[in-house]
């Protein structure tokens, strides 16, 4: 009797997980399917589950609408801001994790609480400043904003990783004739590589997906991919097929990265929460 009850419970659990997974995956599937549909197949009262696939939507957004340039802009902003975030993150996290510095805990706490300021509060005055300096619609403004909003999380993650490294490691490297600089690069750096991967990937993805700052700072010269999505809703109608194709190009590279380096992603997402 107990056996049967246990089995039923286990079957129910499997059913719940399968249903939940379908719900979480379906909109992604639907976007991919829509991106390969002709306009006539996409707008039907009863969904077309099978249809003749076409690349028209991709052709239109890549060759006719200049979306490729926007993806490239997003890539530049993402990569450059992430590299800066990692460098600055190390320079805050490492010294405070390694040495008992007075005020260290307060400064780390302050850096982390910066994440709490709502972005709309920051961008309103900074937009006016950038406008005065002629920086609106430049890569510099995008990169500054993205470094600013990604740095707190990256610092928190890196701080956690550095905290786990015993101080003796660096000391023995110093005894072996390294200076502080070479000790860091030869001994510490390889150990925290997973931390850099986690912090770097999350920082890149958040930059890649960012919309509020990008929407306000974009102009004719510099525009990122999420902002470009707006352009497919024309006064004549909304080009859902092209939006879906653009959505796929924005989402799928990130999804593939997330799946390949899942372990690092989960570690990055949970570390702040689980390790406290």
């Amino acid at each position, binding site marked *: 009797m107990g056996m049967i009850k246990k089995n039923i419970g286990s079957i129910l659990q499997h059913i719940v*997980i399968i249903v939940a997974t379908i719900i979480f995956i379906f909109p992604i599937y639907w976007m991919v399917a829509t991106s390969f549909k002709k306009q006539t197949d996409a707008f039907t009262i009863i969904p077309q589950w099978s249809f003749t696939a076409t690349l028209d939507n991709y052709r239109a957004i890549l060759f006719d609408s200049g979306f490729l340039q926007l993806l490239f802009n997003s890539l530049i902003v993402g990569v450059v801001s992430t590299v800066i975030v990692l460098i600055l993150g190390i320079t805050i996290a490492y010294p405070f994790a390694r040495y008992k510095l007075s005020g260290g805990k307060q400064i780390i706490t302050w850096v982390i609480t910066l994440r*709490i300021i709502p972005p*709309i509060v920051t961008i309103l005055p900074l937009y006016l400043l950038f406008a005065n300096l002629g920086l609106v619609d430049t890569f510099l403004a995008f990169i500054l904003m993205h470094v600013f909003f990604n740095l707190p999380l990256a610092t928190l993650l890196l701080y956690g990783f550095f905290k786990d490294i015993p101080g003796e490691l660096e000391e023995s490297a110093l005894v072996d004739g390294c200076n502080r600089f070479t000790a860091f690069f030869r001994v510490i750096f390889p150990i925290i590589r997973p931390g850099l991967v986690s912090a770097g990937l999350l920082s890149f993805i958040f930059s890649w997906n960012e*919309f509020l700052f990008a929407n306000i700072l974009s102009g004719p010269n510099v525009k990122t991919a999420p902002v470009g999505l707006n352009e497919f809703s024309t006064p004549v109608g909304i080009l859902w097929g092209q939006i879906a194709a653009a959505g796929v190009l924005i989402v799928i590279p*990130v999804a593939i990265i997330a799946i390949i380096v899942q372990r690092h992603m989960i570690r990055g997402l949970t570390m702040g929460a689980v390790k*406290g």
Partner: protein
Amino acid sequence: MKKRMGPYLVTAPALVFLALMALYPLIFLLKISFQDYSPINFENPYVGFDNYATLLADSSFWNSIKVTAIFVVSAVSIELVLGLALALILNQKIKAGKMFQTLIMLPIFMAPTVVGLMFRFMMNEQYGVINYFAEVLGFDRTAWLSDPTLALPALIITDIWQWTPFMIIILLAGLQGISDEPLEAAQIDGATKWQALRYVTIPMLSQVIIIAVLLRTIDAFRLYDSIFMMTQGGPVNVTSTLSWIVFDKGFRFLDFGYGAAIAVVMLIIVLILLTLFLKRFSLFEESGEK
């Protein structure tokens, strides 16, 4: 002495950068909240507390507080309950559990703009696939996003879809860090499954739950992307959150002084909530002791 200065010098550039990017805007924001400020004005005269007085009498401001509160409380609490339930199941022996976890995780990494647009497409009255399913189940087709009673729930559903996975991943990591012994002891003592969950698992998980709720609340509070893509604050103003009206007053109507006053109030609300939250749960003290 010399040795102690080194670390500070290393951190200085990053900290100065953060301070400039955080403090300058706050001071400037406070300043223009006392001005009739617009980039198209020739001059921006000081008007004292006028903007704040306008704000107190502005029904759209009070409406945005209500909308934000409803959104944050319902989205985050539903995400917590669903996330905890699914995390508890995934923590059992589930066949291909890792694969399910990988698939469930995907929404977290999607651009909220893309998610917003896809849900808008799926919620369309005529060709939206969600309406098709509703019809199959015997409900009427509805224009979710232009219906004043359904637009906010539609945004909440979209948020739940995207961020419940975040709750699952964090709570699952928390569950995996808990030792089995107290749970086994409770079962030996004859506790039911529900009692074991309520009195053993949840208390042991409380720290993780608190941080997950805190992180989600911070993000839900700033909701903007999906509003921009799905409803633009409408119909009328049923989805105008605080972030939205700051954007609307400032960047659309170019009334930056008034937008700044709302932003200042928004920041004060966030700081008060955060202080209350940290006092109640004393997060930093506990983690400091470890």
